[in-house]
């Protein structure tokens, strides 16, 4: 599904990602953990095609495509979805209007019929129910005035509508109350299919009780310093990151 090879990326001349290697197979869930500022969102952004990052070295192969050559929308149409850590507020653009445009662009790319207003509404209601999102949020401007939790839920709702192959959830758990966390995680689990993969960026082991990862990676200072099975997350919760920081220095 996804193979990241020796990825280096910088922002404004500062190198943030300093040689990432990661392989995600179809059907797998990978968790990425790591201290603040270690580069998790940068990695997620590079995968989704955020243009403010410069990739200086390395390659990303996604389902046979050279991902770095693709525009953000082309990636989305090929099934990449990023749930933003900080969803953007877009005044004047209704949540369903923009999502319909996105879904139909993706469907068109797949050679499917575009959905008309009625079909779309039906789909949207169904998915809103799945992630227990308040229907009044559908017609409001994208994320505008949404609470922190509502914004996160809106991300998962969009994911449910767009049905990506590779979903990258960047701290979707932060800002969610405990019940919301469970519904959102349930939503993610219901959407899982043997041919879909998920990358979950999180600070908390708690989420991983619900969305159980196949692998856990620890990102420190722009490198994956440790990978393991889901027990690694528990270990991190216990010991923090400092012991790995030391290890990364030793490795470097």
């Amino acid at each position, binding site marked *: 599904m996804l193979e990241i090879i020796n990825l280096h990326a910088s922002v404004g001349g500062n190198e943030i990602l300093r040689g990432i290697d990661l392989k995600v197979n179809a059907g797998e869930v990978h968790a990425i953990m790591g201290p603040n500022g270690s580069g998790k969102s940068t990695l997620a952004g590079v995968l989704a095609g955020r*243009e403010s990052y410069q990739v200086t070295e390395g390659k990303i192969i996604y389902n046979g495509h050279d991902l770095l050559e693709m525009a953000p*929308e082309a990636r989305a149409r090929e099934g990449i979805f990023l749930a933003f850590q900080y969803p953007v507020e*877009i005044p*004047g653009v209704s949540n369903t209007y923009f999502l319909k*445009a996105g879904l139909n662009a*993706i469907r068109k790319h797949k050679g499917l019929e575009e959905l008309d207003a009625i079909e779309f509404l039906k789909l949207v209601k169904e998915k809103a129910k799945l992630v227990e999102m308040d229907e009044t949020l559908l017609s409001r401007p994208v994320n505008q005035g949404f609470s922190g939790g509502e914004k996160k839920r809106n991300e998962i709702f969009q994911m449910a509508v767009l049905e990506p192959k590779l979903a990258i959830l960047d701290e979707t758990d932060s800002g969610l109350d405990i019940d919301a966390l469970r519904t959102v995680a349930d939503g993610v689990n219901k959407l899982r299919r043997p041919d879909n993969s998920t990358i979950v960026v999180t600070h908390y082991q708690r989420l991983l009780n619900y969305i159980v990862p196949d692998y856990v990676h620890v990102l420190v200072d722009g490198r994956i310093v440790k990978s393991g099975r889901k027990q690694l997350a528990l270990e991190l919760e216990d010991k923090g990151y400092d012991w790995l920081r030391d290890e990364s220095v030793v490795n470097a």
Partner: protein
Amino acid sequence: MRKENDALMAQQMNVRNEWYLSSFERFEKSLNGEAKMSVHTMRRAAIAKFAEIGFPTTHDEEWKYTDVTPIARMHFKPILEYKSAGLTAEDIERFTFGIPNLAVIVNGHFSKELSRLSDLPKGVRTGSLAEALRNDTGIIENHLAHHARYEENGFLALSTAFLRDGAFVHIPEKIVLEEPIHLLFISTNPGEPFVSHPRNLIIAGKSSQAAILETYVSLTSNKYFTNAVSEIVVGENAVLEHDKLQVESEQAFHVSTIHIHQERNSNFVQHAITMGGLLTRNNITAVLSGEGIESTVNGLYLGTGTQHIDNHTVIDHAQPHCNSHELYKGILSGKSRGVFNGKIFVRKDAQKTDAKQTNKNLVLSDEASIDTKPQLEIFANDVKCTHGATIGQLDEEAIFYLRSRGIDLGKARDILIFAFASDVVDRLNIEPLRDHLHAMIHDRLETEREQK
């Protein structure tokens, strides 16, 4: 050197003015008996004023960013009388937006055969100003040229000198109009460059309620000049929406003066939308001359290519306890240029004034520009006045967010531009206009995108 230049300029200006002075002589002859009407004394005074002041120049503070030389140096021929130009109802259908009450003005002259005014409630007058000059002398004497004064500038002086026809609307006391009245101004093809001076007088009587739309369109690709003036009187307790849509051709010069006179407890709402014209100047003045007035003056301007769009607004708080709201938004692409100048006067007696003004601009290309200037002149001490202006580009984060959901870059930009414009369009209360404008803006964005 300087002196010589000035002398040369003065000479050039005289030559330009000459053209209108001799046009006026021809106009006068064409009037025959009408030249005996009292309005003609005013015409003569106005042309004398024009001879004296001529066209404004960029030395004029009020015209600093808008050079009207391209208008001044052209020999635009005045259109002295109504000719149907072979227009049929079918030709103009697409401009009517399905609004049932329609008054059509062709090249500045009211067209009886193209207008549809039979459904108006009894007592409501909508028709030709020329006719009102003959039959409604009371109203004419009380209002015509009292609000928009010809001494103010050369364009108003010309409008008054060549004053002959346009739209006249009178809504008597307490009448509530269910359907809007559409005043449709069409410029069409007499071959050589021409000028029309549509002159409109709109009177909303005490406690009346109505909505009026002025639309300016072209059916010609020739160069021409529209010098439009509307005087609007909003009587005590009246509620009036007045919208203006300018979608003239890219060969059109459009100078528009709208003067609104509001009386106590009246509520006036305006949206001035400019999408057309090569050079547009809107002078909009609202005088709040009674207590308890609400006045909303909004605008939207979309410039592309080499369009120049200048909006000058004046909100004059003359009396206490009035609120004014002003939102002007501009979208400038290509090499277009925008100007916004928003003046708010709060006179000495206008205590408890609440005035709010906002001007927001999206500048979409390096070669497009906007000059924006709020001007507050406050002579009362117990008032609330706020103003703010922004100039910006599209939000990159928002664009990325949309693209990350599969929407291509061009469409993502359009969605954001559309939303920016809709903020004004959605405030329109004339529903068919709102729908048409959404479609027009959508089409325009699409065309521009295809051209890239």
